[in-house]
């Protein structure tokens, strides 16, 4: 029972740290990573389909490196090495470097999702469109992509949920998200499991709501098709 009274005590004193700051920054970082990831991920996916060999090779290398190394390591590089390349970053709070890393990371994964979504559309669709006289561009935009989106959306939803949880690694640099809230309160109280239980429930609530929203979106797309 002390466990729950401890949780009540912690929440009475630190609720703002968890509910306002923690959730606020987690949502902020997730939205930045997801929006940036979707935008740059689409660009990367396009670059992968480009006819320029060099561009293709570069993008592939980037995606492989990003997917093949831990996010925590990427965050360290973002925070300590990026400022050497971009001096402006060194005078800004760490959340800027952290956001850039999360966007790059998310872009790499999203680009793969989009590529596989496009490739999953039967090649015959493109061939039929082309033989009916549509340009490559129109065929892509109005025949292939609309079908690809339906393949892409569920995987993209998974990626978004992963991103919400990945933002927790940014707590190494105390940027303020939920896991930072955990570190702050645990540092004051030394009540580790209680604080972890609180952030666990909050993370679950966030991802649960997100997955329900995504499911609803999927259903609506199915109804329309």
């Amino acid at each position, binding site marked *: 029972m002390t466990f729950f009274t401890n949780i009540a005590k912690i*929440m009475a004193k630190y609720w*703002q*740290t968890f*509910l306002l700051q923690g959730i606020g920054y987690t949502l902020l970082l997730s939205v930045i990573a997801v929006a940036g990831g979707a935008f740059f991920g689409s660009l990367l996916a396009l670059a992968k389909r480009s006819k320029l060999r060099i561009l293709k090779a570069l993008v592939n290398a980037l995606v492989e490196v990003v997917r093949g190394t831990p996010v925590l390591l990427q965050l360290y590089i973002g*925070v300590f090495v990026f400022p050497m390349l971009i001096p402006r970053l060194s005078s800004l709070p*760490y959340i800027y470097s952290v956001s850039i890393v999360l966007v790059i990371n998310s872009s790499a994964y999203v680009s793969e999702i989009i590529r596989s979504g496009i490739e999953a559309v039967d090649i015959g669709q493109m061939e039929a469109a082309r033989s009916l006289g549509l340009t490559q561009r129109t065929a892509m935009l109005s025949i292939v992509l609309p079908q690809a989106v339906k393949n892409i959306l569920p995987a993209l939803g998974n990626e978004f949920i992963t991103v919400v949880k990945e933002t927790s690694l940014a707590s*190494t*640099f105390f940027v303020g998200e939920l896991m930072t809230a955990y570190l702050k309160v645990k*540092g004051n109280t030394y009540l580790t499991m209680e604080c972890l239980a609180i952030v666990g429930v909050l993370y679950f609530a966030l991802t649960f709501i997100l997955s329900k929203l995504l499911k*609803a979106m999927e259903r609506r797309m199915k109804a329309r098709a």
Partner: protein
Amino acid sequence: MKNINKFLCIVLALAMILALSACGSKSDAKLSAAYDKYLAEIKANGATGANGTLTVAISPDFAPMDFYDVAKNGDDAIVGFDVLLANYLAQELDMTLVLKPMSFDACMAAVQTGNADIAISGFSWTFERSQNFAISDYYIAGDNETEQSVICLKENEGKFTKAEDFVGYKIGYQGASLQQVLVEETFGGMDVDISQAYVDLGTAVEALKAKQIDFLAVAHGNGDSIIANASDAIAFTGFDFEVAEIYKNNVCLINKDNTELLDLVNAALNKALVEEIYSGWYDACKVYAGISTLDELGFDDEGNKIKD
């Protein structure tokens, strides 16, 4: 969609209950009285920041040396003995202070890569650190370093007072800390299980509560913090380590190439040591962290030190 609405309603309702319950809790303004006074005194020195910025890497998850006051915002929210010291150094060096909070490991990486000028976060001197950093002269943070103790579950309180008493038991510590060095030096040749290091103190405390380890080596000040929050589940064993002179104090880590800053910091630290500038700081931080009260440590209600 109906389900989602219901769920959102529950979440919002919970949030409101919590918000309301929080309104009822008392403010902790009193706790910071002595600390705020010291900070104001330091800042009254009147430095203009003419010599640029002093970027300090700090790991604020270590009450009472470095922790957060969640009622404050921005840099002001990071408090503790090391923050007072950082402010004092910035004043002495006539620099503008920038605090960069990050994990203990990242503090060292920040200094090595030049992202921070100096790491001030309750560091002790160790041989490995002296190889990789320029280490400042020492400073004394109350009994945080001079007393190194072992804590245990309440039922063993006071029963283990000699090193031999620990034979056959398992003792944990924070990895890469002074406590690891002490545990290895003290119990290394004996039949004591010292195989388990923990990434941070909080995790180690959980392991102690879950009886995965029998004992945990801690700095005395951290032990006070842990016990004050453990609702009577944890206590001191009564055993204190014999601490060699070189480990008794804290130091700052500076990049090996930055000898200029090292000299300036050392001059300021020596002045503070000789003039006993930080004598009341640690007590003020102990009150702030809720380990002790103003009255117990000889402060009046406004935070003036009236007796030692």
